[in-house]
């Protein structure tokens, strides 16, 4: 029989970690994601799967612990909320530069600064445009349900190891705090030392046997010619990711004259707006990017040939809308509808904004 649990999004991340064979979680309390660490400490997975759980002294320490664990070829992760992710930016850049896989969960809250503990989607730029310094990207998964917060732990680790890149799950305080049923069908064991050796012998720092050269996890290269080559290799990997890993969901899109684009919690509200519109006979559809990087630009460009206009609903001042405009390339109007500071729109408000666009 299928195991189903009624849990919060943050708890789903904790359970997903334990059941996805995660080796180590390192985190620091911050609302609205503290339940991840709290749940792990309650469940004591070190006594069952052997997973290490540690409360670090800061997010700076958390991400550098993740860096150390990742260098050993282990499945390691952290979670935080917006201000904490800002503190991790340097570490994430190092992870990208040293080509280390890991999972970082951001349960977003409103900013800037200390801002508010209420939900927001204002860290889109931070997540998809790199976050730290240097030319790099991370794969960004945007869950819209508690089920996806569970599943994306598995998917996040798989993608991280497939490409040896950091992966971010960009959630928000709505999905993190709400309770839903989760089907806990996916489950797998931690890797054995032998399995890690088979997969990562060429790079993981687990002690150098006589049989191979020493492994060095480093992002440093002072020779500019070599550093440019390393950058080019990273960029080539990013192109592969763009080719293979774009994910999105569509609702009522086939005959849509107006397309709402929304991710995460906004997509749930927007899908209600689509139902309201359809009830009034308006041909409105929804495109929900599931990967925010790589972005479904090709699909949006295609839809620009069919739709009369786009409305981008996001809980920020207008961030993802820039990527939609790039893809649409001026062919049809693209407007933004947002709330900030922890305020949330209703489906009615989204529909009203859409009607104003289609009339104007």
């Amino acid at each position, binding site marked *: 029989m299928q195991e189903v649990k009624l849990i919060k999004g943050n708890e789903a991340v904790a359970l997903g970690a334990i059941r996805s064979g995660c*080796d*180590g979680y*390192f985190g620091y309390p911050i609302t609205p994601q503290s339940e991840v660490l709290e749940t792990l400490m309650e469940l004591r997975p070190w006594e069952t799967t052997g997973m*290490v759980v*540690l409360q*670090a*002294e*800061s997010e*700076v*320490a*958390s991400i*550098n*612990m*993740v*860096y*150390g*664990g990742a*260098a*050993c070829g*282990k499945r*390691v992760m952290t979670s935080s909320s917006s201000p904490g992710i800002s503190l991790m930016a*340097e*570490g994430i850049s*190092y992870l990208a530069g*040293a080509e280390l896989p890991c999972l970082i969960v951001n349960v977003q809250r409103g900013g800037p600064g200390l801002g508010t503990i209420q939900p927001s989607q204002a860290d889109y730029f931070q997540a998809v445009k790199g976050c730290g310094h240097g030319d790099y990207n991370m794969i960004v998964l945007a869950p819209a349900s508690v089920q996806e917060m569970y599943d994306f732990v598995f998917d996040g680790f798989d993608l991280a190891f497939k490409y040896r890149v950091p992966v971010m799950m960009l959630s928000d305080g709505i999905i993190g705090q709400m309770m839903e049923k989760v089907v806990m069908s996916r489950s797998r064991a931690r890797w054995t030392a032998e399995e890690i050796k088979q997969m990562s012998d060429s790079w993981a*720092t*687990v*002690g*150098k*046997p*006589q049989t191979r050269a*020493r*492994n*060095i*996890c*480093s*992002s*440093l290269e002072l020779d500019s010619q070599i550093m440019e080559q390393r950058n080019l290799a990273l960029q080539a990997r990013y192109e592969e990711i763009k080719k293979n890993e774009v994910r999105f969901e569509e609702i009522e899109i086939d005959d849509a004259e107006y397309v709402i684009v929304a991710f995460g919690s906004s997509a749930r509200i927007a899908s209600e707006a689509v139902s309201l519109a359809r009830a009034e006979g308006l041909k409105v559809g929804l495109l929900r990017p599931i990967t925010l990087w790589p972005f479904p630009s090709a699909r949006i460009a295609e839809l620009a040939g069919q739709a009369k206009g786009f409305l981008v609903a996001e809980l920020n001042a207008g961030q993802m809308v820039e990527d939609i405009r790039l893809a649409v390339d001026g062919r049809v109007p693209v407007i933004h509808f947002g709330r900030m500071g922890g305020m949330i729109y209703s489906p009615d408000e989204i529909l009203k904004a859409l009607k104003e666009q289609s009339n104007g």
Partner: protein
Amino acid sequence: MDKVYSRSALLTDNVMHYCPGCSHGTIHKLVAEVIEEMGLQADTIGVSPVGCSVFAYNYIDIDWIQAAHGRACAVATAVKRLTPEKMVFTYQGDGDLSAIGTAETIHACNRGENIAVIYVNNAIYGMTGGQMAPTTLLGMKTATSPQGREAAIHGYPYKIAEMVSHLDGVCYVTRQSVQSPAAVRKAKKAIRQAFENSMAGRGLSFVEIVSSCNSGWKLSPVEANRWMEESMFPFYKLGDIKAGTPAAI
């Protein structure tokens, strides 16, 4: 004839980039020798800092992780927790460990992580061109204290070894140097003790090595050693600060 010295097989053929007279090279040799003598090449993971010794991984033939500036103790924490059977050590300068990395250092010490910390204190930021470090002595001229360090402006030099010795998670704290054959022998013994503590899971071991940076200090290697003995040693007193022999733990 008895062989009194042989180069450790764990030292690579790469030519060290350190200035002539720099202590880093000597300390690298000691670390390599101890790992070799303990038979731990396949069981050691080193964490290198940001500082002149960032390239430690080019010289000692073991697996290495290059950490962000100051974060080596956090990196090593995860490595040791995830692979507790391994010997894990950090190698850090005074800017790295006691300025930007103070929090990571103190908290790894306080948690009693089973790692060894090699702390190379040359009272200056060598790599970036000789700026003042938290360890810079009062009156000492650096690029950012060109008239000499003044307490009223820059605060006082501090002894982080003494600070961490008060933390319960720390089993062994010692301050050594490498300017003479006798000092080198003692420093090597201290490093070995620290590495044995890591393997035995006794808590965190902290080995400070008061070092010379003739480039940063703008002295010849010989003058630098003399200045270190006359000015550094009276402030950074050599010897054990917290006993680390198994009997004492």
